[in-house]
């Protein structure tokens, strides 16, 4: 177990290194002088020279990279040009809303998608199956921001049930927190549920063709019990894998959703950083989200141990 963690952790190191190289090069790819790009349009020649010295732009690109990587590894991601504060502090401030949106969305997605997928698999080829699969194509074809505005129009403007803007800290009460998260999370969950319901259906259908399912049926097991105990239990690993892989899409979705619903999280910070060309902040956010993606997928790998007792690391 520990051995696996170590090996798997080491295996992610080259991936993270490549991410670091790409993120580092992104800043160097700006047309013209990166120092001028960082300094902005209103900078004087002195400012540019100062930034150039700060970034060590006169050194070779490899030296620059090693220097920058050393800073990153010490947790120093530099200062935001726009907010004039440490980017790590900025990210920390914006973490709670984004984590809330992501967590509630994942829970909601699993609650919607897994039962629907199991249902579709158990009625494979039938009318219900075709309906669920048709709805799922619709689900991941509707862009998040279109779905978002339809939700606002329906639940907020027409019915007046839910707030359409802003975020309430979880510390100020779970009720208001959930009410503000309801629309953004439903919006995001529609898309992910569509994807995960399809995978669940495929995985459960496959499990249903196995011999142990036939044996269980021969013993006269109740259909629902067979679906849960035998089919779903064996389909859990592919479902977990897709949930892990779709975290990348979820991050993209969060960026859009936070903009629509005016949630002051990392997504909005990303858009603001890009609009103001706040390069250190862009770099830091990109690194951070990539790290999240890698770590989540590492955790998914570990979850196989719980989901499938046959797997030993």
């Amino acid at each position, binding site marked *: 177990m520990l051995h696996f963690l170590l090996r798997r952790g080491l295996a992610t190191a*080259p*991936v*993270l*290194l*490549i*991410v670091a*190289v*790409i*993120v580092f090069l*992104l*800043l160097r*790819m*700006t*047309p013209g002088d990166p120092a001028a790009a960082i300094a902005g349009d209103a900078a004087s020649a002195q400012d540019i020279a100062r930034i150039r010295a700060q970034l060590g732009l006169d050194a070779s690109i490899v030296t620059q990279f090693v220097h920058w990587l050393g800073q990153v590894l010490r947790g120093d991601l530099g200062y935001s040009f726009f907010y004039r504060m440490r980017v790590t502090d900025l990210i920390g401030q914006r973490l709670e809303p984004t984590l809330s949106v992501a967590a509630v969305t994942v829970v909601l997605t699993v609650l919607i998608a897994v039962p629907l997928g199991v249902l579709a698999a158990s009625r494979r080829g039938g009318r219900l199956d075709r309906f669920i699969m*048709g709805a799922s*194509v*619709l689900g*991941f*074809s*509707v*862009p*998040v*921001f*279109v779905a978002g*505005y*339809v939700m*606002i*129009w329906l639940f907020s*403007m027409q019915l007046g049930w839910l707030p359409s803007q802003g975020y309430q800290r979880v510390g100020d009460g779970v009720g208001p927190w959930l009410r503000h998260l309801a629309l953004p999370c439903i919006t995001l969950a529609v898309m992910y549920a569509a*994807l995960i319901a399809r995978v669940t259906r*495929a995985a459960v259908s496959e499990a249903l063709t196995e011999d142990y399912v036939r044996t269980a049926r021969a013993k006269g097991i109740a259909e629902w019990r067979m679906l849960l105990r035998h089919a779903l239990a064996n389909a859990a690993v592919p479902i977990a894998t*897709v949930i892990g*892989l*779709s975290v*990348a*899409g979820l*991050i*993209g979705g969060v*960026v*859009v959703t936070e*903009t629509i619903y005016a949630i002051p999280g990392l997504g909005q910070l*990303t*858009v603001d950083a*890009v*609009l103001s*060309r706040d390069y250190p902040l*862009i770099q830091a*956010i*990109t690194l951070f*989200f*990539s790290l999240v*993606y*890698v770590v989540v997928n590492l955790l998914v790998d570990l979850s196989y141990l719980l989901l499938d007792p046959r797997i030993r690391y």
Partner: protein
Amino acid sequence: MTSISLRDDAPTPAAAATAGVLPAAPRAPARSLLRRLLANGGVRIGGVLLAAMLLLAVAAPWLGTIDPNAMDPANSHLPPGARAEFTTLAGDSFDRFFPLGTDSMGRDLWSRTAYGARISLSVGVAVALGSVAFGLVVGMVAGYFRRLDGVIMRVMDGMMAIPGILFAIVLVAVWRPSLLTVILAIVVPETPRVARLVRSVVLSVREEPYVEAAVALDTPTWKLMLRHILPNTVAPLIVQGTFICAAAMLVEAVMSFLGIGLPSEVPTWGNIMSEGRTHFTSHPSTVLLPGLFLALTVLAVNMLGDGLRDALDPKFKARGG
């Protein structure tokens, strides 16, 4: 030996592309493939929808549109179906019917939406072609030249660890937005996914007896790859390309919508929605109508992709994640 002569009968990819034949199903004649495709309800609906959108894009100037950037502030926020006297900034005045109404600057939404179809569809197609082309080369090299595999695939893994939309947004921010940079920015994050798929196909095909036979016959590497390996990638790539096309249209719209894609005067569906966003509570149709066009187009492409996957290979499960 027989397998080699069989493969020689298979159409080359280039000939297949021009003839519209899919070489990946050499045993099934093209006609039966077409029949299988058309038997799929999703393909029929998706095909008709997509054809309508293509027509909208190609024939935009002749579909009762005016200059998508012509504005008349006096006619801002007309409701869909309104008729009004439109005066351009140049002073030309004419009576006009506005099927979808106007936006806050008094620009005709129908014209902007129709021209927006051009951007969406060309971005979708260009990104699909671009990432398939790059991914094909990278994947073939990684799959065939084993010594390069480790390095190439680690780089691809690294690229895939950066969330796609974020990657594209950052690239556009760095390059400054134009149609070409937007397309490239979406191609870059999609390429590793294609490369992975191609590599897995190459890895399984290179163990096939006909490839071993060709190697034994001293077939030059380039010929081996073009003739014996490439045709096997065509079917999965067509399916993958379709899904990439749909995803690319979404990403472009998201970028425009967030205000970091193409310049706001360019009529894209995302830009129209972005502009309508500030007035959403009073004029929801400005956001919802272009959104409907976008959703229908993406839906059409996804339905086609689903049908193609089922028809080309029922077992093929790759879905660009």
